[in-house]
């Protein structure tokens, strides 16, 4: 799945432009894509990821150089994060992830298995030491000898530390990697912790959500690709670009939160009219995520739009917030 996007060649003047050998830019140029067409492509890309428009030319520059290496590792997880990422919408985003980077380890999709897969990872980490991006999903059982996670005969702690050692930085994708998530929920039978708990001295950027919105993951990577630096992070190591607002503050149902009437039952007339779901336990007011702005699956909908309250899945310990259907207590949020 690492090949080219579909390019509308007829719409682009076949003049070509210069790009480093092996880069996306070179392949697009080889396909007859003009410099102007390529820039337009990159600007659209930035826009679809909710990045500033000025980042288009920077992305264009990044896409004309050799692809940075990504090592993607999974621990106590459900593959929902990757499933979300694979469904990231638009050829531009697929291009970004699959063309802009070289994904050198990704158990779910790579051809090689077993020792050969591990050898590919070691080779990529050695060849790109200090430069590769380590993407992690899933929580980590803190006790390395517990047996709660072993892969290729190695514990999660050992695998994570070894892979992070030479990484440029680490992206903890999903609430499990960012905060411990489901396995960390009470009573945390396996002693699961977040990636940053195992790597206190490493730059870790958290991209929470159960799963995260695909375009948020790809947006963070695109930002780094274009700017060669990470976006601004809050105290929970989340990019404020996507997690700066609550789901509630941008929600189209916010008016009926203030003025009522709110929905009292999933089936009622207010539910059908799209009234506020706060009384049915919606955690939108305390949940920082881009669901009500970016929305899901090419902007199709988001949980509240489809009638269910926000379950708070991008927040630490959301599984233990007092119940999915329990109303948030007064004073527990700013409004």
């Amino acid at each position, binding site marked *: *799945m*690492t*090949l*080219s996007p579909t390019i509308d060649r007829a719409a682009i003047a076949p003049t070509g432009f210069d790009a480093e050998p*092996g880069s996306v830019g070179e392949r697009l140029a080889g396909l007859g894509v003009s410099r102007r067409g390529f820039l337009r492509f990159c600007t659209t890309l930035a826009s679809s990821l909710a990045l500033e428009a000025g980042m288009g030319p920077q992305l264009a520059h990044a896409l004309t150089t*050799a*692809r940075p290496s990504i090592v993607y590792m999974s621990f*106590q997880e*459900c*593959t*929902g*994060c990757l*499933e*979300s990422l*694979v*469904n990231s919408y638009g050829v531009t985003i697929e291009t970004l992830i699959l063309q802009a980077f070289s994904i050198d380890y990704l*158990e*779910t*999709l790579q*051809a*090689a*298995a077993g020792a*050969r897969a*591990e050898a590919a990872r070691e080779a990529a980490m050695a060849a790109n030491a200090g430069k590769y991006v380590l993407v992690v999903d899933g*929580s980590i059982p803190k006790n*390395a*000898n517990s*047996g*709660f*996670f*072993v892969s*290729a005969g190695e514990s999660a702690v*050992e695998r994570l530390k070894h892979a992070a050692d030479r990484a440029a930085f680490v992206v903890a994708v999903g609430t499990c990697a960012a905060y411990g998530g489901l*396995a960390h929920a009470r009573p945390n*039978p*396996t002693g699961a912790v977040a990636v940053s708990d195992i790597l206190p001295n490493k730059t870790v950027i958290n991209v929470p959500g*159960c799963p995260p919105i695909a375009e948020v993951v790809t947006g963070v990577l695109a930002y780094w690709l274009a700017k060669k630096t990470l976006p601004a992070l809050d105290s929970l190591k989340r990019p404020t670009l996507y997690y700066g607002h609550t789901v509630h503050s941008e929600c*189209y149902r916010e008016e009926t939160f203030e003025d009522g009437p709110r929905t009292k*039952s*999933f*089936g009622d007339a207010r*539910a*059908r*009219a*799209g009234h506020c779901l706060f009384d049915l336990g919606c955690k939108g007011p305390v949940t920082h995520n881009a669901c009500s702005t970016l*929305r*899901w*699956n*090419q*902007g*199709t909908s*988001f*949980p509240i*739009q*489809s*009638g*269910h309250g926000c379950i708070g899945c991008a927040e630490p310990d959301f599984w233990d917030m007092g*119940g*999915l*259907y329990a109303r948030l207590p007064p004073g527990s949020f700013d409004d």
Partner: protein
Amino acid sequence: MAARTLVIDPVTRIEGHLRIQADTVANGDGSVTISRASSSSTMVRGIEIIMKGRDPREAWAFAQRICGVCTVVHGVTSVRAVEDAFGIVVPQNAEMIRNLMIGSQYLHDHVMHFYLLHALDWVDVVAALSADPAKTSALQKSISSTANNSAAYFASVKTRLSDFVASGQLGIFAKGYWGHPAYELSPEQNLLMMAHYFECLAWARGIVKLHTIFGGKDPHPNVVVGGMPCAISSQGGGTGHIETGTAVNGTSLAAVGKLIDEMRRFVDEVYLPDMILLAQVYTAAGKAGRTDWSKIGEGVGNYLCYGEFPATAIRDPSSYLIPRGVVLGRDLSKVHPIDVSAPGEFQEFVAHAWYDYKTATKTTGLHPWSGETSLNYTGPAPGYTVLPDHAESYSWIKSPRWKGKAMEVGPLAHVVVMYASGHAATRTLVQQAFAAIGWPLDAGLTRIHSTLGRNLARAIESKVIGDAMVGWYQRLLANIAKGDVSVFNGAKWDPATWPAHAKGFGFTEAPRGALGHWIVVDAKKITNYQCVVASQWNAGPRDTAGVEGPYEAGLRGHRVAKFDQPIEVLRTIHSFDPCIGCAVHLTDPDGEASVVVEMAQL
């Protein structure tokens, strides 16, 4: 030559963390034959433990995170368990919406499984680079009416592949088994399959929107005890940025119809024809003296289905598209009834799993309503190469049994039980496919009990279910047209309405097979929650009696031509579509050092 232990850890192109370890016997020609295999899951989260003490209405959200690939089915299974416990009947619209969500999950997962997770076991990417696009175009036109069939189209795919290889950054295709003698497809057949590998990505991104419309997002769409949360809009509404109403309105329902058409188009024009072509080639290889993949990889020959897709209501099993029942020992003349509540029928064993039973001995089987999840890791400290797997426990998967028997679940079980039950469309499709492939149509469908048969069954049921989706969709629209917009029954929403003690069984017949949740509720809280999931049936370790699970049984007798490139093992394991988050790693037995899977350099 001494026996050697073959190890594949991690098994890639699956969901989750699976290790396969196998004892082999040397054949004298450099190849080995597997004499005994063990299937191990090496990751556990303890979700059943985490669910205890919680509100049963929120169990679905926890259960759903068992697996992000099977995303909708664990959610639906959980709400059905609670609905069964409290006697909640959901509105028919909710049944139809659940059918549509589960149906789209089937088509999405089966297509994605074949192209992304399994195809590279059969398709040689490098060989595709020497294909003639004009001949590929002629091949495509001979097997399907799909629109992407021109020589120019296949030339563009070939160029993309060539450019990618020329970049030297091979990413996920690095170190594959390219050039292995087990690959049988012609260059043109390889190129055709690779074109569809890429086509299915865009297709999948589109069709998941059915989940987003009804469930708000994908993966992990929302469901609710009592029906569905997706109220049908009374004003405005629709998808995208709306000001009033809800996602489900006339416009988005029309879009759902187009999504169903698009799902079915890909299955009819691409997936099913490709599967028949693949089966033709890998069966013909047998006639040329090489391995006939319709003759190996059977598993255990017993099949279990809970049933799925009610035409009317989940409480009426007679209305299911996939019937409930068991076929034993390949005998398609009889479908045996099952009783999910009978302690003697459904039991989980932990004799070779890293669990203990506190209320029973480790050798006992427990019915899920009285089941336990007590983690007890007794394996070696990490840093091992060979996992002791004889007398020892060697997996985080329990071993479920029906009347003491190991059962295969999943698409092959579905098609076998549908065929045995006389489902007309399934019988016709099986007969047509067997004729096209050249398999003899005997009463027991001998060739379907195989690695290739399991794949063919997956494609056939995709068509059966895709076609049935049209009916559920029309039923939903007809109800709404009559003014019935009910999607939720809130009569038992309030915990005050619940009995002091209740227990329930919830199920879906998931894309990967029979999925059951057994719940016990006391004083409004979950006191026991046991999931017996599809891949547990298939990937589980030996039971107390030493009986293998289907993966283990399916691998026995496999000839591995190149010890360091066990593509044969991957073919059969991947044919089951492992989903180990739901349930689990291949290795090398005693004696020599463990060998890890080696793949030829791309």
